[in-house]
């Protein structure tokens, strides 16, 4: 008898798992707040890594593996990263077969470009909308299985909580229809969380509006371990906006774009100056800190503002059109200037969470029957993710979920009592009744802005222990003020405010393991940088932060990192990378 699985989230990871499970004849219920084709994966621009070695550079999955571990500053468990890099070429070929219009060489083969933190042309790309193209290919394959009756889509539904049995095993979820606000419990043999990142915890980020981290937070509050929450990637090149910060892809630098600002009246290409070995293609944490230094310490921001230039005006416009038009169009549309002629003005912005739900090497969380894949898992990127490894990790994690979920379903068939579903449904109904009664002076969206401001100021690029402590105090204050929110919308149909109020609580809960995880880690590693502790400290901190929710705040424990394959060594980008 086929297993029955729930997948929450319809981005690359969720759709990959849905396709793989349906291919095996399993039944899938797919939940997504937005129609899956509008998931945040569409925002990924630059490409997907895989050491296909079509450029005669001697690239190999082992070099990809070493670049990824080194780029992640030796915080990722090494065996799963190795498996991902080995799987990468076949993943790219599969998507090619599914019809993704990857850019081609004159011979008609897949073209590859360079990205940060590597010396090889390893990134396959479809213009500069690669995430969108990969997502659409999966959307099509999953629609094929939907037509065949194996996948049921619940679009416009939001997951509220897990349903767990007496032993703590996950037995399904409770979800809400965002139109009718009707809640329902859904039983399943296994549940996969594939809900992406928590960008909205930082207010304005490069992430989409659905990326609240709310589903992940609900799992965390139900006893799922949240790991390495303090590792937050700030992308060096984004446009600052009122509603979000729009990503300007690393592929711009991969194709020859240069970062500079004026010094003594002349352009200063400071990344090329500071990091001659990698230049503009240093990893993101390195480029972001360099921009911060130039702007805040050296006071060399463009016109005194926190901005520097990203310049493609010296490059061939035809080649730009073929390879990165999608990115340049975004800049042109939102800045009103043609980046082919005028340098773009950019600044770093929160982009990606390396941290996420703790999973084993088969993507299962510490809650039996609950799996996680994609940005919402912690597994593949250590302390800093290399560009174009995220699409890869989403798809790879979605792939390897499939056998693990099927095996779990086979060996855990005993039917759960209907009582646990009724209980959880009742708990969620009461929680919404409570929110509907809120009638204080606070506005949920204004509280959210305060959350975003303080997290962006203190828990991104540069971290100080006193400010991290102050941030946690502020989080407690905001949680207190949450109970004094007043609802403007009391309607029982398509009420987005009431849904947001609940998401906001979950964001506040999730912000604490991020902030306190950073406070605990007295070293600098990858994206986590403390000026008071400027060195990496392998002796004390080469370990995974594990946060467990409790009513008095997160409880921390640590797990050693599996460094059995590549011996840790200092990470530098001003000189050539030494051999592993």
């Amino acid at each position, binding site marked *: 008898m086929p297993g029955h699985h729930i997948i929450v989230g319809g981005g690359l990871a969720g759709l990959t798992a849905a396709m*793989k499970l349906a291919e095996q004849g399993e039944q899938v219920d797919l939940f997504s707040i*937005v*129609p899956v*084709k*509008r*998931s*945040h994966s*569409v*925002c990924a621009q630059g490409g997907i890594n895989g050491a296909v070695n079509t450029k005669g550079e001697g690239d190999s999955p082992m070099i990809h593996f070493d670049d990824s571990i080194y780029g992640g500053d030796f915080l990722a468990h090494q065996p799963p990263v190795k498996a991902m890099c080995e799987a990468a070429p*076949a993943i790219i*070929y*599969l998507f090619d*077969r*599914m*019809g*993704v*219009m*990857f*850019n*081609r060489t*004159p011979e*008609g*083969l897949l073209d590859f470009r360079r990205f940060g933190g590597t010396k090889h042309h390893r990134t396959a790309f*479809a*213009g500069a*909308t690669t995430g*969108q*193209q990969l997502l659409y*290919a999966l959307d*099509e*394959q999953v*629609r*094929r299985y939907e*037509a065949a009756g194996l996948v049921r889509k619940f*679009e416009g539904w939001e997951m509220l909580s897990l349903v767990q049995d007496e032993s703590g095993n996950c037995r399904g979820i409770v979800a809400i229809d965002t*139109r009718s606000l009707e809640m329902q419990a859904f039983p399943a043999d296994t549940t996969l969380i594939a809900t992406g990142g928590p960008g909205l915890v930082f207010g304005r980020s490069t992430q*989409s*509006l659905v990326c609240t981290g709310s589903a992940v937070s609900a799992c965390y509050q139900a006893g799922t371990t949240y790991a390495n929450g303090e590792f937050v990637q700030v992308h060096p090149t984004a446009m600052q*906006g*009122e*509603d*979000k910060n*729009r*990503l300007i892809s690393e592929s711009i630098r991969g194709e020859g774009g240069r970062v500079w600002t004026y010094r003594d009246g002349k352009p200063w290409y400071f990344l090329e100056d500071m990091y001659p070995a990698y230049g503009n293609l240093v990893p993101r944490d390195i480029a972001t800190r360099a921009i911060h230094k130039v702007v805040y310490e050296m006071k060399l921001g463009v016109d005194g503002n926190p901005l520097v230039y990203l310049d493609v005006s010296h490059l061939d416009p035809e080649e730009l059109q*073929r390879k990165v038009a999608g990115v340049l169009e*975004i800049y042109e*549309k*939102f800045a*009103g200037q043609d980046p082919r002629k005028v340098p773009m003005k950019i600044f770093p912005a929160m982009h990606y969470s390396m941290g996420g739900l703790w999973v084993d090497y088969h993507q299962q969380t510490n809650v039996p029957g609950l799996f996680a894949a994609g940005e919402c898992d912690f597994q593949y990127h250590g302390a800093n993710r290399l560009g174009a490894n995220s699409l890869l990790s989403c798809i790879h994690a979605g792939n390897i979920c499939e056998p693990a979920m099927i095996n779990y379903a086979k060996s855990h068939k005993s039917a759960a009592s209907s009582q646990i579903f009724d209980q959880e449904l009742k708990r969620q109904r009461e929680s919404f009744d409570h929110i509907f009664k809120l009638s204080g002076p606070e*506005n949920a*969206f204004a509280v959210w*802005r305060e959350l975003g401001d303080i997290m962006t100021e203190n828990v991104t690029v540069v971290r100080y222990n006193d400010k991290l402590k102050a941030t946690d105090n502020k989080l407690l204050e905001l949680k207190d003020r949450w109970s004094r929110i007043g609802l*403007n919308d*009391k*309607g029982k*149909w*398509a*009420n*987005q*405010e009431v849904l947001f109020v609940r998401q906001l609580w979950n964001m506040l809960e999730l912000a604490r393991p991020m902030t306190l995880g950073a406070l605990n880690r007295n070293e600098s590693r990858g994206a986590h940088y403390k000026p008071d502790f400027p060195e990496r400290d392998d002796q004390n901190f080469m370990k995974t932060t594990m946060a467990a929710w409790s009513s008095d705040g997160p409880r921390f424990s640590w797990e050693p990192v599996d460094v059995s394959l590549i011996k840790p060594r200092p990470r530098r980008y001003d000189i050539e990378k030494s051999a592993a």
Partner: protein
Amino acid sequence: MAEKTQVLRIKRQETPNSEPYYEEFEVPYLPHHNIVSMLMEIRRNPVTRQGKRVAPPVFNANCLEEVCGACTMVINGRVRQACSQLANSLHGPVTVEPMTKFPVVRDLWVDRSTMFASLKKARAWIPIDGTYDLGPGPKVAPEVQQFAYLFSRCMTCGCCLEACPQINSHSKFMGASVIGQVYLMSQHPTGKMNLEERLAAMMGEGGVADCGNAQNCVEVCPKEIPLTTAISAIGRQTTIKWLRDLFMK
């Protein structure tokens, strides 16, 4: 001097079957504001120009970079994505309305699930043998890739349906978007193999023959997809198939 402001006149509708009405809001003018960021501003203080505290306007938006298609609305009479409509190119009060060719869920949120149903009907996917490792895909000439890529950027946003005079309560026309996707599949070496079954869908109810050649679709497409090229190519191929089916029977 008073602070510069922008007036938004929003068409609202509480439920799918209730009467629509308009409400006006005034938000501080910021040059980098767009329609979505102004709607977000209103959410922080949902008070109309008349000083009435109301429910914040309900709307769909996600990526805010014009790649997901979610925030498609009718702005000053023209359908487009709200996120990329900047404040500094607006003059005077701006009217924001939901699309008219789809059922309203609430306020600016419409239900476009018919578009995804059309993709299912048209079998718009590449029927691969399996997801296991079968080696590299077919070679594709760079020119073919560049041309096909134009069509692969369709966000299923619905602008082409909103602007199409053939889409109305008396017609079942599926619209230009899905025809573009059928054409895209026919550009791929593997997708080509199953062209017949997709053409069959295009010859059925609501298919390509319902196009009235108004060419509004190509005018409003935010991604400038050459939809009329796809419509005429698929139209030609369905005619050939029709004749062939006729004589082969």
